[in-house]
C-alpha cells in the first residue's frame, strides 16, 4: 500500500531564517506530487506541483521554492522566511496511472514564523 510522510509536523522559525519541509511517498512510482498551503484553517492554495524528477511548476509567485531530487521526494524550501509564510503546509500525491485517480494528503506541517 502507498503511504505519504511529511515532516516536521510543527516548526517555529524566526523571520529571515531558511525553511525546509520534506515529503516522501512510498509504495508507488512516478507519482504526481503537490504542495498546498492552508491559511487560517480554511481554503487550500496550490503552491507547486511536479510530474517528475526535477520538474516543478509554480502556481503563484512567492517566497518559496520546491525541488524534487528523487522520484518520491518533494521538498519545500525558502531562503528567508517572511511572517506571511506562516500556515499549514500539506504535501499530496497522486498516481499518474489511472484517470480520475484520487489525491492523497500527508498529515501536514504547521509553520509559525515569528
Amino acid at each position, binding site marked *: 500500500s502507498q503511504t505519504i510522510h511529511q515532516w516536521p509536523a510543527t516548526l517555529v522559525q524566526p523571520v529571515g531564517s531558511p525553511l525546509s519541509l520534506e515529503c516522501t511517498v512510498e509504495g508507488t512510482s512516478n507519482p504526481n506530487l503537490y504542495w498546498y498551503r492552508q491559511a487560517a484553517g480554511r481554503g*487550500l492554495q496550490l503552491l507547486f506541483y511536479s510530474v517528475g524528477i526535477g520538474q516543478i511548476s509554480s502556481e503563484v509567485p512567492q517566497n518559496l521554492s520546491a525541488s524534487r531530487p528523487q522520484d518520491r521526494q518533494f521538498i519545500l524550501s525558502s531562503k528567508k522566511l517572511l511572517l506571511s509564510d506562516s500556515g499549514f503546509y500539506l504535501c499530496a500525491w497522486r498516481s499518474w496511472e489511472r484517470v480520475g485517480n484520487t*489525491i492523497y494528503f500527508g498529515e501536514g506541517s504547521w509553520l509559525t514564523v515569528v
Partner: protein
Amino acid sequence: AQSVAQPEDQVNVAEGNPLTVKCTYSVSGNPYLFWYVQYPNRGLQFLLKYITGDNLVKGSYGFEAEFNKSQTSFHLKKPSALVSDSALYFCAVRVKYSSASKIIFGSGTRLSIRP
C-alpha cells in the same frame, strides 16, 4: 476559468438530522469531482469521488454525493448526522493544465453537528 465553489462557510445541523454541504463547479470537459474531510490540525482525508457512471456516489463514514450535470453541482449528503461528523469539508475538482492535471479545492465548509 475552471473553478469550484462552496457557497456556505458554515453549516449547522442537529444530530440525527440529514445534512447537505453544497458544491458547484465550472470545468471544461467531463468533471472529476472529490470530497475531502479535515479534522483539526490534520491532513485531508478522502471521502468519495465521481468520475463517471451512477450520479449518486457512496463514500466513507456513511456520506454520499449527488452529481448533477445540469446544475453543475456535487453536493455532499448524509441521511443522519453524527456529532463526530463535525469537521471542515472540501470539495475539489480535477482540471487539465498543459500536460498535467491538478486538483483545485473549494474554500471549505465547516460542518457543526450539535447534540
